[in-house]
């Protein structure tokens, strides 16, 4: 029953939380650049407008694919907040990303194509961290069940600081923030125009935006998991990490895909892998 409530609360509240977060993000970014910034409800106005616009479909597949991206993203968060299986959650998350990539590949635009290829690179860079996080969390808490992990009261952050840092690193990719906004950028236009969303307009773009709100809420939930033993500390950590990501976004130029991949893997290997090896060597974790 509790898991069902968690799931329902997420499905209803996540777009609101995600949308407000996006609005706050834009205001904080604007203030960092000495500007006033848009109203906090701006992301909702944008999505409302996109629904009112006509949709120019480049092929019949694109809208269903964008819709699948949204459905699987909702499913990811639903599994997560229902306290389900962490492996299922992470793999559903990857499936959601794949649908967006296929939607972009289905168009004829070279910008969309390059964006999709770069999104694959991002997936390739980020996925090892999520896999290591699962392994590390299992080693510490002895279960893959998210409810048991959160309720277990184990301070994951103390056992898994390396994996947590890796997660913060790939969070910039998943939030599509500089320096890793190689496939799609929120700011103006970039060298590949709007990258992965170049050929998605109107209704399909609105779905991508909403799915991004769900995604952000889920990712911040993952940060929360590391601090789940103390609610106040966890909320503060989530806020701090998000603020840190905005600051990094505003102070860094975009990097090449090569550096994205190599740096993410190197960090994962050294910090994430090192963390895991240390856990096994010291073996302080109770079974």
């Amino acid at each position, binding site marked *: 029953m509790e898991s069902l409530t968690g799931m329902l609360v997420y499905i209803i509240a996540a777009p609101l939380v995600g949308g407000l977060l996006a609005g706050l993000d834009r205001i904080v970014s604007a203030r960092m650049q000495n*500007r*006033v910034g*848009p109203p906090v409800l*701006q992301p909702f106005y944008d999505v409302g*407008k996109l629904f009112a*616009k006509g949709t120019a479909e480049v092929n019949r597949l694109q809208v269903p694919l964008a819709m699948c991206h949204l459905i699987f993203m909702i499913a990811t968060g639903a599994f997560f907040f229902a306290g389900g299986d962490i492996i299922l959650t992470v793999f559903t998350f990857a499936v959601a990303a794949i649908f967006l990539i296929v939607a972009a590949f289905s168009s004829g635009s070279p910008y969309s194509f390059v964006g999709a290829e770069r999104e694959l690179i991002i997936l390739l860079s980020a996925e090892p961290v999520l896999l290591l996080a699962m392994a590390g969390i299992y080693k510490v808490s002895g279960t893959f069940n998210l409810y048991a992990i959160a309720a277990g009261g184990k301070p994951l952050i103390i056992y898994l600081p390396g994996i947590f840092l890796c997660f913060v690193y790939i969070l910039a990719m998943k939030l599509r923030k500089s320096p890793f906004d190689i496939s799609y950028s929120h700011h*103006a236009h*970039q060298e590949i125009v*709007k990258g992965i969303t170049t050929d998605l307009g109107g209704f399909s773009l609105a779905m991508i935006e909403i799915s991004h709100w769900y995604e952000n809420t889920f990712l911040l939930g993952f940060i929360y998991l590391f601090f789940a033993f103390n609610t106040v500390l966890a909320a503060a950590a989530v806020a701090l990490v998000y603020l840190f990501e905005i600051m990094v976004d505003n102070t860094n130029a975009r990097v090449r895909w090569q550096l994205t991949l190599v740096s993410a893997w190197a960090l994962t290997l050294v910090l994430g892998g090192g963390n895991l090896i240390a856990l096994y060597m010291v073996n302080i974790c109770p079974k």
Partner: protein
Amino acid sequence: MKKSPWLLHYDGSSCNGCDIEVLACLTPVYDVERFGIINTGNPRHADILLLTGSINHQNEEVVKNIYAQMPNPKVVLAVGVCATSGGVFAECYNVKGGADKVVPVDVYIPGCAARPESIIDGVVRALAVLEEKRAKLAAEAK
């Protein structure tokens, strides 16, 4: 619709004077993002096409193409005297004239170069046209 206008800026054959003023609108001094205005580079996401510079035989097809790629409802702004009428280049053999020679222009913003204040004012006026077009499209759909 009025609260979230996304712009697409195309530079026809301008001297870059108007383009610099368009970019100035994004700076902390004018900060058009206050009104939810975003400078998008993508016709599929744009609601407002902002044209600077006069139309010549080379960019004619480009402007038509961009206009055709924008989803309805959409409005066109001609910024600066070159885009509104061809300006001092109107009589040149290689210039066709203002933007309205190839696409229907809704708002004309004069000036050489057009001031950021007048560009913002023009965009706000364009929003009223955009709303009108949206209502018309909705009525037609019924």
